[in-house]
């Protein structure tokens, strides 16, 4: 257990320094010994990749597909299956085998009150929290974290720069986010616990989609829960509130996979991709899909070709 934590922490530091990122693949070796239960896992009969209902997840799904295909694994992608709440059970039941996930979101889904925030610790917490039959593979260097943003005008009007500033205006501000944010730690619950923030109202909208962004633009909500890889944040000059008390957990992209298909071929192919794809690159891929209206599949395949994953 100690060794895991140590290596996990090592991999965590690798994130900050991309040059060192090959260290992250060191975690792969860990999976050889330990809890995988090994022998029976096989990707021979192919791997079905599911993706949730937002475009970045589809891009990641197709990137996984490209990486696995290049390693000789037969893959099938089922895009746009729905929210995590719908997709996760499908992984357990066997409708899909592999899902691009995010550390923090996955952990708060499994343990809504979890307060673990650091990447390596989180990897361990995930391993412990996952039901049998499922595991997370080593996480990638790319990260797509939750963030809370306000418009430039709102920031000026209320003097907001950090999440702590929100507490000065308790009972006045309206927050918009997808429904689950109301009941989880990285959301209304944690904002109250950690920063003492109380909102006037919670509006159920969507996960970094047209509803929450539209509502922020229109002024229907003051604070919006978005993701850091969203190019609209920059494009609209929105202000991301800082998180001095680290409420928001690390959100590295991590493959969530069923034990039955997690053989060495799959592990290596995904680890390689994880060490390659950076947050900046992922943000750019998202932009191509959301703004240039390119297909997630095409964008992923082009990236895979350009970076030597496929020929």
């Amino acid at each position, binding site marked *: 257990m100690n060794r895991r934590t140590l290596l996990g922490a090592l991999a965590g530091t690798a994130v900050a320094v991309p040059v060192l990122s090959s260290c992250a693949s060191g975690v792969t070796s860990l999976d050889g010994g330990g809890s995988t239960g090994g022998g029976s896992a096989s990707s021979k009969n192919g791997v079905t990749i599911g993706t949730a209902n937002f475009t970045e997840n589809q891009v990641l799904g197709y990137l996984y597909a490209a990486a696995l295909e290049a390693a000789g694994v037969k893959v099938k992608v089922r895009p746009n299956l729905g929210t995590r709440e*719908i997709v996760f059970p499908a992984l357990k039941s066997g409708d899909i085998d592999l899902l691009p996930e995010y550390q923090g979101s996955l952990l708060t*889904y499994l343990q809504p009150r979890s307060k673990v925030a650091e990447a390596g610790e989180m990897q361990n917490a995930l391993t412990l929290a996952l039901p049998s039959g499922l595991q997370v593979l080593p996480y990638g260097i790319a990260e797509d974290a939750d963030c809370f943003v306000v418009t430039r005008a709102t920031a000026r009007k209320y003097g907001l720069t950090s999440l702590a500033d929100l507490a000065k205006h308790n009972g006045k501000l309206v927050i918009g986010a997808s*429904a689950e944010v*109301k009941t989880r730690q990285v959301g209304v619950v944690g904002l109250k616990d950690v920063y003492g923030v109380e909102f006037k109202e919670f*509006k*159920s909208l969507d996960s970094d989609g047209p509803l929450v962004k*539209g*509502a922020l633009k*229109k002024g229907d909500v003051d604070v919006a829960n978005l993701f850091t890889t969203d190019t609209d944040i920059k494009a609209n000059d929105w202000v991301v509130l800082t998180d001095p008390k680290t409420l928001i957990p690390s959100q590295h992209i991590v493959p969530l996979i069923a034990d039955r298909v997690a053989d060495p071929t799959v592990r290596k192919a995904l680890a390689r991709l994880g060490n390659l794809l950076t947050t900046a690159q992922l943000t750019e891929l998202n932009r191509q899909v959301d703004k240039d209206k390119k297909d997630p599949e095409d964008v992923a395949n082009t990236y895979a070709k350009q970076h030597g994953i496929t020929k």
Partner: protein
Amino acid sequence: MFELFKNLAKWLTSGSQWAGTDGIAHRLAEHLQYSLLATLIAAAIGLPLGLLIGHTGKGAFLAINLASFGRALPTVGLVVLVFLASGLSMWPVYIALVALAVPSIVTNTYAGMTAVDPDVKDAARGQGMRGHQVLFQVELPLALPLIMTGLRLALIQVVSTATVAAYVSFGGLGRFVFDGLAQRDLVQVLGGAVLVAVVAIVLDLGLSGLQRFLFRHRTA
């Protein structure tokens, strides 16, 4: 399964669940508002259209085909389309619900009108009644049962579909279905569904009661 229904009963009867802006009472009121307003607008469009076509016999083929075309309109697609065009507003909800309700109202009104015995209409004209008198004093009362059927069908469909308002950020009982889905709370989903069904059934019974009251002299 038993556990689910026990929790459902608890959810439906807890006082705190009914209170507040995201409580059942408020959501119920919103749902009724969307459904009734949409059905009223649809009736304002569909009834005159159906009566006109039925009375004059003109444009029936076109109207009936358009109505069945309208029935095929995918509500989700319509909502998204109007949303992309108009932004965050109630338009997507009302346009989709009205589009859903109009076909049932038009076709049933028309069917009611054509079912009126031509001999009766001739007799009315023979007595010197004018066109509009024939329409309002003879055809309309005779066609009313089928017209009411159309309205009831439309209302049921609208009540059940008004859940879609929650998809584009608004309230109504659909909130429980969509939020329950997001929060992995099957009890909430089921609770929302049951409430919608109950509203639809109660409104339908109400309308059929009204219908019986209106025609209480007829069969006696």
